[in-house]
């Protein structure tokens, strides 16, 4: 079932055209992954979907409602959680308090018992309850990423947008974060993820997109060879295909005659 439909979306950052007449659809309950070069407009698309950036042209509909018309601080039928890149905070808030800020749109004043309950449930789900009193600034990059994911989760979103959730993480946390995301899709959440590692995208993503030339191309209908060629073209790197079970992974092809 279609949840997000984008038609003829254009967006400029200053004079620079970032997105041009982009069309795309995202399905409910799927794990979609967006690949693409740095600065190709992936984050801009996310800002538009998350409602941070409203200065766009075209049509972005979520569950049939235009994005701009979805009001914040109101119980709408679709909740969107958004996790951006490069987050840092100056104040050493405890993990519990950081996650609690995710409930801010549910209450105007003091958090209620159900807000605390929700934070506790989510932290326990992600095995972070033992960290609840630790200062956020003392955590490792992977732990922080999980805490921010919890912060997004406490608002009980239907759609979760994640900008490079595995960035800066070691292999352990990469797998841990992605497994958690996979579990969430099995619980009916819709996840759209920006990623830089095509192989992790192949392993965990259900639907792949490639951001290139200000457009978002769906890779899911393409054959293995076509995907391979598209990625080679997008990343400007010669690739070699590696068979892994019934999947095809890729590695950069090192050409020794360069020397």
């Amino acid at each position, binding site marked *: 079932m279609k949840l997000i439909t984008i038609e003829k979306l254009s967006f400029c950052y200053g004079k620079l055209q970032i997105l041009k007449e982009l069309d795309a659809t995202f399905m409910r309950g799927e794990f979609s992954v967006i690949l693409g070069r740095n600065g190709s407009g992936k984050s801009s698309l996310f800002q538009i979907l*998350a*409602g*941070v950036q409203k200065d766009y042209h075209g049509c972005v509909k979520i569950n049939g409602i235009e994005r701009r018309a979805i009001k*914040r*601080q109101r119980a709408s039928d679709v*909740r*969107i*959680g*958004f*996790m*951006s890149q490069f*987050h*840092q*905070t*100056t*104040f*050493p*808030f*405890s993990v519990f*308090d*950081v996650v*609690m*800020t*995710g*409930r*801010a*749109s549910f*209450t105007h*004043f*003091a*958090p209620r018992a159900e807000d605390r309950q929700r934070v506790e449930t989510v932290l326990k789900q992600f095995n972070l309850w033992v960290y609840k009193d630790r*200062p956020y*600034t*003392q955590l490792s990059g992977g732990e922080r990423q999980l805490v921010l994911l919890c*912060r*997004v989760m406490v*608002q009980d979103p239907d759609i979760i947008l994640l900008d490079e959730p595995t960035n800066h993480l070691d292999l352990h946390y990469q797998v841990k974060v992605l497994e958690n995301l996979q579990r969430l899709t099995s619980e009916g959440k819709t996840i759209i993820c920006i990623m830089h590692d095509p192989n992790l995208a192949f392993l965990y993503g259900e639907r792949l997109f490639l951001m290139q030339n200000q457009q978002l191309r769906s890779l899911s209908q393409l054959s293995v060879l076509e995907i391979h060629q598209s990625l080679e073209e997008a990343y400007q790197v010669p690739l070699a295909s590696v068979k892994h079970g019934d999947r095809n992974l890729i590695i950069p092809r090192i050409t020794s005659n360069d020397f």
Partner: protein
Amino acid sequence: MVLLFSLALGSTGFVSITDLLYHMYARCASAFGLEISVSDRNLETILWQVRLPRILLTFMVGAALAVAGGVLQAVFRNPIVDPFSLGISSGSAFGAALSMLISLIPLNLSAFLFGVVAVVITYFVSYTGSRGSLVTMVLAGMIISGVFTAFLTVLQYLSDPYKLQSIVQWTMGNLHTASWAKVRTAVLPILLGIAVILALRWKLDLLSLGEQEAIAVGVDPKIIKLVMIGAATMITASSVAAVGMISLFGLIVPHISRMLVGPSNAQGTWANILIGGTFLLLIDDFSRTLLPFEIPVGVFTMMLGTPLFIYLMRKNAINWSA
């Protein structure tokens, strides 16, 4: 307790706690229509006309400056800002002095208006382009603060000796001119501002994570930010209008609170009220009793605040990232 202690303490000598309690009992009793002879008329005047208004005003100002500092640090996501470093204090001081010189608009209003002007200029100077860094903001605040201080100097230069004296005394931070009239003008804006901040204090943690992080969880930070900065400016300006400039108090107290009750603003705001109020009261007690003459309160803020601050900083080192 500190309130009671401060009441007993004064330049006319220490009143014993039993005398004080007896006096208060007598006063309460007479309010209920009972005739109990009040032993000492002098004592009554000193307590009710001199010390009590001063104590109330001091507590309010201390709480106001501390709360304003805590709010500004959270909203600007910057642990090194305070009402002073963002230019509010200097702006308010200029506004107040201006209204002392040419009484076009009331002192309170003038102090508030120029406080707002100063913080708005600071904000726009430092927020060129997409994001302002913590350093540029403090730099901008210092420059704006300097400009208003310069204007204040110009005003002092232009004013006649009689007015000059009152302006100079007042910029040094003078709690000794406290009166019931001052308490009455300051109480409404300060209590109102603190009440607004208290009601919205749960949002401060969210604001200090950043604008995008607020939008990401479905909260529009702009309105809350404006309300918070407005309230902080109002209580700072009222304090400045009432007792003049007490520098660095609004910077130190939020840090002390944070070290004692943790970084969460929900508890921090209450801690700022209590610690700010009692701390300034203690400082004032010292400054009026330690020497035969009164030492300006600003001097003691630093002399008492600095060692305490250093001690707390060494004891529980807080992990500031970047």
